[in-house]
């Protein structure tokens, strides 16, 4: 009978598992290292997310930058020290009030043999600012550019539509990656999105959706040939699996090691744990269209009821820094005089009573299901809110759905998790895309004062005036408590000791040009 057979198979599986575990415990670490060594100059990186589309203008995901930063170059480049340096442009200067001129690097070719020149730059930005770019999330970052003019084959002018104080930093961003005109026109954007071609240190070889992507060294790279021969990125959403792959020697670098496994990596003789403070901040946003989150007293009550510092100390093992607005202290526009609302459950109860929120009221917190650290923090929040009489329901949502549907279409609960890279290190990018009404990430919230400060900050290039506008904006957002900023993230990378020259990047943009293996 089927049942009997089933049981036999199950017993077999259990025995096999036991045997496997036994072998692992027994000198597994030495074996793991030889497995890693046997790969020679090829490197395997395990990362949590597959961005699905490799077209630079179609993405906003840090997981794209981990890979894309090795395939593509932009006119300028921002290294792991977060400083701007020359990229495909060798120099730049303002030649008029609204004209920014770039001198381009000569003798650079795309991976398919096309030459890099002023036409490629013009094509890239025409595409980004045109209808093709309008389909993706990158165009919004570059709306201050009116158009690009070709001056000669190795000189271009960026003609600006409005002031943009962070334009140089933005030109190191994803959307500004230079793409090959002939290749894109011949094959179309859909094909390009699955078979990217750039000028970077590594060439695209193969992509299997949700499985892996392979790159090979570009020996004629303008800044010298890379030391690695092949790099494979494997997409492993499950954090414990990423760490297991690293331990077993089947991967050399693991991104997003969860705090709960930090010690596992740290205590492994073959591995190094690399923590890096990142501009990424994590918060809970409120959806004011869903009762009772429209009431500022309710929002402040939730904020007062949760001991964020205790969560950082325990669940994040100290790998996080408390923030008071939705930006890191690295960000231009951060007001250090604002202090986070203190943990005060008594105050929370009082606010809830004033707002007329009854004890036992149910509220929902949505979050992407693969975020292991937040999942634990969320469960601690259930307990904190229970203590002030709120019943918190957790709603984990599959991450692709979460970012493409749940958040932009306001399908979350009253509370939802949100993380933001803050990659320009200037609050403008964050504030505009998150608090200006009608943006992709802000389907609901609007406030006249916030709009006023956003306009004020954007209408000048004078940094002092901008900072003053940001201070007003910070204060207003803080008073409205429209979001509950939690912490600036410290990212954990697990790296096999055979890997040399790897720097854990604060902005997740992995650079492999200088990386080698022992």
């Amino acid at each position, binding site marked *: 009978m089927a049942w009997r057979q089933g049981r036999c198979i199950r017993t077999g599986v259990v025995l096999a598992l036991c045997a496997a575990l036994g072998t692992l415990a027994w000198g597994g670490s030495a074996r793991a290292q030889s497995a890693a060594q046997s790969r020679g100059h090829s490197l395997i990186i395990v990362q949590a997310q597959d961005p699905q589309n490799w077209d630079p203008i179609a993405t906003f995901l840090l997981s794209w930058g981990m890979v894309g930063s090795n395939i593509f170059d932009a006119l300028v480049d921002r290294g792991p020290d977060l400083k701007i340096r020359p990229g495909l442009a060798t120099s730049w200067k303002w030649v008029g009030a609204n004209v920014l001129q770039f001198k381009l690097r000569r003798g650079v070719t795309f991976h398919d043999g096309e030459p890099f020149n002023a036409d490629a730059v013009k094509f890239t930005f025409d595409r980004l600012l045109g209808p093709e770019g309008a389909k993706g999330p990158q165009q919004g970052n570059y709306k201050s550019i009116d158009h690009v003019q070709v001056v000669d084959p190795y000189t271009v002018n960026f003609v600006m539509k409005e002031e943009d104080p962070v334009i140089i930093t933005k030109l190191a961003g994803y959307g500004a990656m230079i793409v090959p005109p002939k290749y894109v026109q011949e094959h179309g954007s859909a094909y390009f999105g699955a078979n990217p071609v750039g000028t970077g240190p590594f060439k695209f070889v193969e992509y299997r959706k949700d499985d892996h992507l392979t790159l090979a060294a570009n020996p004629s790279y303008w800044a010298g040939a890379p030391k690695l021969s092949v790099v494979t990125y494997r997409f492993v959403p499950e954090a414990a699996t990423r760490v297991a792959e690293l331990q077993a020697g089947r991967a050399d670098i693991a991104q997003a090691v969860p705090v*709960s496994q930090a010690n596992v990596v740290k205590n492994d003789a073959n591995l190094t744990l690399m923590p890096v403070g990142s501009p990424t901040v994590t918060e809970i946003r409120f959806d004011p269209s869903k009762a009772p989150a429209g009431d500022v007293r309710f929002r402040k009550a939730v904020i007062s009821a949760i001991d964020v510092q205790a969560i950082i100390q325990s669940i994040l093992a100290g790998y996080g820094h408390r923030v008071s607005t939705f930006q890191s202290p690295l960000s231009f526009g951060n007001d250090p005089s604002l202090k986070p609302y203190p943990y005060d459950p008594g105050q929370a109860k009082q606010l809830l009573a004033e707002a007329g929120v009854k004890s036992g009221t149910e509220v929902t917190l949505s979050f992407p299901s693969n975020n292991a650290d937040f999942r634990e923090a969320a469960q601690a929040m259930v307990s904190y809110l229970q203590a002030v009489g709120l019943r918190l329901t957790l709603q984990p949502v599959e991450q692709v759905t979460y970012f493409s549907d749940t958040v932009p279409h306001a399908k979350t609960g009253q509370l939802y998790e949100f993380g933001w890279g803050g990659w320009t290190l200037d609050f403008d990018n964050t504030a505009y895309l998150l608090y200006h009404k009608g943006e992709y990430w802000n389907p609901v919230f609007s406030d006249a004062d916030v709009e006023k400060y956003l306009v004020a900050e954007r209408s000048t290039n004078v940094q002092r005036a901008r900072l003053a506008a940001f201070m007003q904006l910070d204060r207003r957002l803080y008073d409205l408590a429209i979001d509950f900023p939690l912490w600036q993230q410290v990212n954990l990378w697990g790296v096999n000791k055979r890997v040399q020259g790897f720097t854990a990047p604060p902005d997740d943009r992995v650079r492999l040009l200088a990386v080698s293996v022992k």
Partner: protein
Amino acid sequence: MQATPPAVALPAPVRRGAPIGLRLTLALGLGLVGLSLAAAVAAPVLAPRNPEAADLRARLTPPAWFAGGSPYVLGTDAIGRDILSRIIYGARISLTVGLVSVALSSVAGTALGLAAGYYGGWWDEAMMRVADLQLSFPFILFALVVIAVLGPGLGRIVFVLAVTQWASYARLVRSEAIAVKEADYIQAARALGVRDARIIWRHVLPNALGAVMVLATLSIANNILLEAALTFLGLGVDPAVPSWGGMLADARNYIQTAWWDSTFPGMAIMLTVMGFNLVGDWLRDRLSPDLQS
């Protein structure tokens, strides 16, 4: 007086005195099932603590018998909740899913199977082809699709399990019904003008019931496992609600640093499933010897 021998030989009674080993396993099975039922019913009385109350200062406290003697019998999880209390409350989810899904699928499957087997014809054909379709569809895939469309939740899991399992009951009952409906006493009842509904209710159903009960008991065990698996994958109940699968999912990052976090919920699943399986095996031996191979 001498007793007259019966005209027809009675069937030999099925093993009246079961071997001692069988009785022991039955006792063990009943004990385990009883234990989990008691935990589910009397959770608020039995649980030493609030299963949702976290104490971050006491996170990952080892069980009481370890050095230091913690006040938590089976230790605490990653956010400082009492594991014993969560296991006791978790029995509610597991047993609810196991019992309700089996009740739904067995009642529906039995009704459809009786109708198909007794009446035959196009109705039987149609029913059995639908059942084939249902049985050939991979369960996890079906569960993923349904939950992706409807969203996760306890009700959805019960629904998915019930929908995927009715076909097994329908087939089983149909074959019993076909075997029985040609029997002389059914023919006689028909000749006497007894209505179909009554024949089915009084004669066909009781014949099939033994096999249904065996299948149902074993399915409870199976469904408890499937619920744990779905919740582990994040498709089940709210992560904050104590459930065995959810506890395992939360504990997987701590397997190497806090073994108790995953071991005890795992044992709860194993022992409950084993209990239902032992009872199911015994029922099969008693009620439906022809199911043995």
